[in-house]
Structures are given as C-alpha cells and as structure tokens.
C-alpha cells in the first residue's frame, strides 16, 4: 500500500522518515526538501530507496582540483590540528612529500601539539612561535625550501568563531598571503564537528564571506552523532566534503565516500 503513495500507512512511513532525518541533524529545512524530492520517486522505488537516491545525488560532489597547499580553518575544537596530523600521515603513506606549517600562534601549546603529531608521523614541520603573526608564519613557511619541494603543504590555523570579525580578517589575510606565495595552488578546508547542529550552516556561510572554502572535513564521525548537517550543507552550498575523521589516531581519516556516509546515515 505504501508504494502507491496513499493512506495512513504511507503517511506514517513518511513521518518516521522525517523523524529519522531530523534526529540525524539534517534539520527541518533540508529534511522537508529531501522528502519533497523523494516523493516524486517514492511510488516506483519506495520511500527509503528514494531518500537514499536523493541523498546520494546531493552528496556526489564534483571535485575538480587537488591543490598543493591546504589551509585548515574552522571553529574552535573542531579537529584542525589533529586532521593536519592525520592527513600528513595519509599522504606520506602514499609516498608523497609533505610539509606542515603551524600557523596557530595563539592557542596554548598548539605548536607542541602539532610538533608531536609530526614527530609521530615523521613529517617535517615549521611551527610558528606563539605570539607571532600567523600570516607571516605562512609567508615564511611557503617560501622555505621544504615547502617548495613538497607535494603537499598542510597549514594549521587557530580556531576561531565565524562571528569574530577580527579573527575572520586575520584568516582572510593569511589566505591572501598564501595565495600570493603560491598562486592557484590553495585549498581552504573547513573543519566541522559531526556533532554540530544547524549552526554549521552559519559557520559555512560566514567563513565563505571571508575566504573561499574549497572543501569541508567532517570530524568526529566515530561518535553517536550522524553528521546529518553535511546533508543540509550540501543542500545549501556546493562545497565538497573531502575527508571524514573517524577517531584520534593517525589512520582515522578517510576520503569522503557518499555511499559509505549515506549507508551509515540511513536506517
């Protein structure tokens, strides 16, 4: 009966699916749009497959380039430093030359945290002195020989709230300086905690007003949070999700797979 779209059973099925998506942090706006889109195909394939198809459609990003310099930015505590450490390891395992720049000159022991990660993963690192200007650290780092000869340069930055104008200006300047040093070679990746709610939309919106994010990293997807905010983000912005964090160890980072993500998200 549900396949033919009518009746109480179909309504109940829809209601359960709506609840499921809402509990996963897809949010009311994106959930409504997805269910509306799925309604079209529901009669032929059933509700769950229709929703699955719509999610896969939304999350299949067209990743055009893989830039040499990757700057990691995002709100405090979302996993930037750890992601830099893991990604350095990931690329090193592929036999790539990696250089890390620590441009978080604000947070206590940020340099030590990053240096420890790079020691464990055998990655050369230039951590800026606490208190120094982050853009200058990036400038110096990118003009070094290690940066020139690297396949990838990963740059950590200090956590910042998207509503803090001074810190957003600082980030914009840092990205500009990087762009001057390495024209057309810059990726800006925003880290987002998978447990974040609808505020992630404001975060991506505001970061996009100051810099041009070219990728998202969804961290801490190893918890009970489903990271459904990624769906809402895909609905509203077209920034590809590039990597997913699945834990605190060096191997706990994987390239984003729409199928894996959707399979884990849906019942």
């Amino acid at each position, binding site marked *: 009966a549900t396949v033919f779209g009518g009746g109480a059973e179909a309504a109940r099925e829809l209601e359960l699916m709506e*609840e499921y998506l*809402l*509990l*996963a*942090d897809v*949010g*009311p*706006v994106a959930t409504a749009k997805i269910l509306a889109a799925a309604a079209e195909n529901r009669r032929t394939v059933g509700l769950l497959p229709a929703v699955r198809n719509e999610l896969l459609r939304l999350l299949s990003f067209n990743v055009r380039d893989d830039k040499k310099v990757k700057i990691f930015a995002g*709100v*405090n*505590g*979302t*996993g930037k430093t750890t992601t830099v450490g893991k990604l350095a390891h990931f690329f090193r395992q592929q036999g790539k030359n990696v250089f890390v720049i620590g441009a978080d000159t604000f*947070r*206590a*022991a940020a340099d*030590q*945290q990053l240096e*420890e*990660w790079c020691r*464990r993963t055998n990655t050369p690192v230039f951590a800026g002195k606490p208190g120094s200007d982050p853009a200058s650290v990036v400038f110096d780092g990118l003009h070094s020989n290690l940066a020139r000869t690297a396949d990838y340069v990963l740059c950590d930055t200090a956590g910042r*709230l*998207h*509503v*803090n104008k001074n810190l957003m200006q600082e980030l914009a300047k840092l990205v500009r300086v990087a762009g001057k040093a390495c024209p057309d070679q810059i990726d800006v990746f925003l880290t987002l*905690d998978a*447990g*974040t*709610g*609808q*505020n*992630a939309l*404001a975060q991506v919106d505001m970061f996009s007003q100051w810099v041009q994010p070219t990728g998202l990293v969804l961290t*801490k997807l*190893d*918890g*009970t*949070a*489903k990271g*459904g*905010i990624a769906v809402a983000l895909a609905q509203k912005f077209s920034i590809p999700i590039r990597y997913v964090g699945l834990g*605190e160890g060096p191997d706990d980072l994987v390239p984003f797979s729409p199928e894996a993500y959707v399979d884990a998200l849906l019942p």
Partner: protein
Amino acid sequence: GLSQRLQEILGKLRGRGRLSQADVQAAMREIKLALLEADVNYKVVKDFVAGLQEKCLGAEILTSLTPGQQVIKIVRDELTALLGGAASALAEADRGGAVYMLVGLQGAGKTTTAVKLAKRLQAKGKKPLVVSLDTHRPAAREQLAIVAEAAGIACHRPQGEEPLALARQAVDFFAQSDYDVLFLDTAGRMHLDDALMEELEAVKALVKPTEILLVLDAMTGQDAVNVAEGFSRRGLADSIVLTKLDSDTRGGAALSVRAVTGKPIKFVGVGEKSAQLEVFHPERMASQILG
C-alpha cells in the same frame, strides 16, 4: 524570528479573549520549527510543544498583548522554567578540600574551562589547584600548565602516563597542600567508548569528587541528549557547563540536556580568555533559543 512569525499568523488585534484551537495549532507548528532550527532535540520538542499546547489552549490573552505576544510570553516562561530553577554555585565539600572533575567529548572546552572555574573561585578567596589527567592528547598537560600560569592559577604536574596513577598523586598532593579546591582536567572521550568511560568511573571511585561537570559545546545538535545521557547514567555528570556561547548558535542543546537529564546548567563559556565564564541565566538562554 519566531515573534514576528507568530504576530503574522495570529493577527494584530490586542486583547482578543482566548486563543482559538486553530490559532494554537498554527502557533505550535511555528514553535516546533523554531525549536528544531535551534537544535532542540526532536523528542524534547514534541514533549515541550505538547505541554505548551495545553497552556496555550487555556490561556486568556491579556488586554495589553496581541495573541502572538501572548504565545511568545507563554513559550518564554515555559522555557525559562525548564532551563532554570537550580543554584549555579559549585557544590561545597562536606569537609576538607573540594575536588571537581571536568569531563566531556573531545574539543568541548574542558581544559580551558578548568582554568576559568579556578580563576572564578580564586576571586572568591579560594586557593585552587588544577591538575591534568590527560595522557592521551599531545601536549595536553603543557596546554593546561600554560593556560593556568597565564591566569595566575597553580598547576601541579605529577609524573606518569596512567590517568589513575596521576589522579592518585593529584589527590595525595592536594591533601598535603594548603590548596582548598582541586580541578581535575580529563581527556576528551566519546560516551560510546566503554573502556574510556570505565576509566572515568575508576577515577571517580578513587578521588570521590565533590562534583563532576560535563562540559558541552553549545553548538551541539540532536546528539546532545545522547552525550548527556551517556555520561549522566554512569554517574559522570552532576552539572553542565555550556561552552562557546559567544558564537551565534541558538543553543537548543541546553534545553535538550536539561529536559533529559534534569542536571543543572551552571556556567557558560563566552570566550577563550580565562575571565570569559559566566553564570548560566535561564531567561537569557530562553531568548537565545527562540532566536
């Protein structure tokens, strides 16, 4: 925001008598949407709106208010009542020094909050000491030492790599000292991780804390109830600290956590500096959630 939406659907006539059934249903739909957008947990929203519906159906609209204003007032009062009603001071120790543990997910703000709380107590004449039990995160103990020093707070650094051994040394040192408050910073962990949750239970059994504070990021979404319940049902959350409320997050996690665990939200973090900790104000939180 919600106020405006309610004004639009319920009309602008003041003192219109009682809210009609249709009015209330329309209002409940808007409120449900607003609360979901604010990250209040879906199940908490359903219960809250059901209770609210009762209150609104019986309500007499005050002559000075429009129906929309009347509904907003009821919602705000209900939210405030749910969020508040608890003392926001830290629990006092029965005798001897007080020991507080900070626990929570990775990156929530525990280390920063430990020093903030210590600074707050120092200003009230206490002699606080902070100790990190985090042997997992690279440079975690250095981080606490640096933040504590910058804030003028004493930080003890026992030797070793086992959290339980560090905890034992911390309480022994504390007992022998003339510090009167001890804050124990712990490593971030998922409530899903049984081994790490048991580790925390072992620390609790050893140090017998006066209070365990669950530190939670205010931008947490639907998962906030799972986190809070995960810690609370193991006796690992006596009260809550919400961090990063200096962001524009609506903070619906506050309502979810309070509704599901009943634990009081005592403090909120409003910045990265050690002075940026405030006492939790339920009415302010209610306004923030309603947007």
